[in-house]
């Protein structure tokens, strides 16, 4: 029930925020996915690079998921929605890049469909303390033919393994880039994205890509 005049450009939102609009000169919007298991640093990564206050959307789980989840008696609302954090970077006068941070569970089919379509690629964040938890999301990306690079997020106290051991533990293909990054640091996080995009440039077009 805002009382601001309809012509007011500086729309004030319910939380007191004002929207940050895309420049008029922008003609193309691209997206890259930032994925990984719970608490691996996706939200931090997006927040570090985004030029806008990162936004969040919550999507109800699909009914198919609700049936198998048996949510009866679970009062926690978060159990029935999945949240996605995203941010924006202006890369040139005519190009913006959106970064979508999202969990990698298979059952969020609708959200995945929306995110994967048209995405350039994905950066998988991994934690050396829980490498096995990265398999689900890597499997999901492979299933959808979505190219990815892996960035090991450096947490204080994370063991520092040699690259070949991490590659082996994650069962990475030789061509899949593996970098380390600090999701709290803009330069480090930007370099991880650069490694992904350089990988995308070298990648042959898959013949079975859906038209």
């Amino acid at each position, binding site marked *: 029930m805002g009382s601001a005049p309809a012509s007011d450009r500086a729309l004030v939102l319910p939380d007191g925020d004002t929207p940050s609009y895309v420049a008029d000169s922008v003609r193309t919007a691209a997206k890259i996915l930032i994925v990984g298991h719970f608490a691996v640093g996706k939200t931090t990564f997006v927040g570090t690079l985004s030029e806008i206050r990162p936004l969040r959307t919550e999507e109800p789980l699909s009914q198919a998921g609700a049936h198998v989840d048996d949510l009866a008696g679970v009062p926690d609302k978060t159990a029935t929605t999945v949240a996605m954090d995203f941010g924006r970077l202006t890369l040139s006068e005519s*190009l913006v890049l959106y970064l979508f941070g999202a969990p990698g569970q298979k059952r969020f089919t609708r959200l995945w469909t929306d995110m994967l379509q048209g995405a350039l690629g994905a950066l998988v964040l991994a934690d050396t303390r829980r490498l096995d938890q990265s398999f689900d999301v890597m499997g999901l990306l492979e299933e959808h033919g979505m190219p990815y690079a892996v960035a090991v997020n450096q947490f204080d106290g994370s063991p520092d393994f040699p690259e070949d051991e991490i590659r082996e533990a994650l069962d990475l293909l030789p061509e899949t880039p593996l970098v380390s990054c600090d999701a709290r640091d803009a330069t480090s996080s930007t370099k991880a994205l650069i490694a992904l995009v350089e990988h995308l440039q070298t990648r042959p077009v898959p013949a079975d890509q859906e038209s």
Partner: protein
Amino acid sequence: MTPPRRREQGLVRAYVVTDGRAHPTRNTLDIVSLVNAVTGRPMAGLTPERRAVMELCRGGALSVAEVAGYLALPLSVTKVLISDLIDSGHIIARAAIPKAQLPDVQLLQEVLNGLRARL
């Protein structure tokens, strides 16, 4: 190995704000499609949610995802609302990368240049 392709099963959710529809009227709308309100369109008869989309999009271009984030609506609902508003001439969309199209060489190079310039 050819992975099985998962299809949305079309389960209809009773979204009140979308008149019960779970799917947008057009499939060309991406979550990073940039949308703008068209000025001078009649606002009478728009539901409060559609009106809120119009007010938000009057100030400039935003992606579909940003509209969802600012209005605290699920993406799926936001897509339906924006599709309707495009159909009625209230909203225009600027191209995101077309869904079925692979990112081209030039776009990847532009992304790379933009990222490198930030270092």
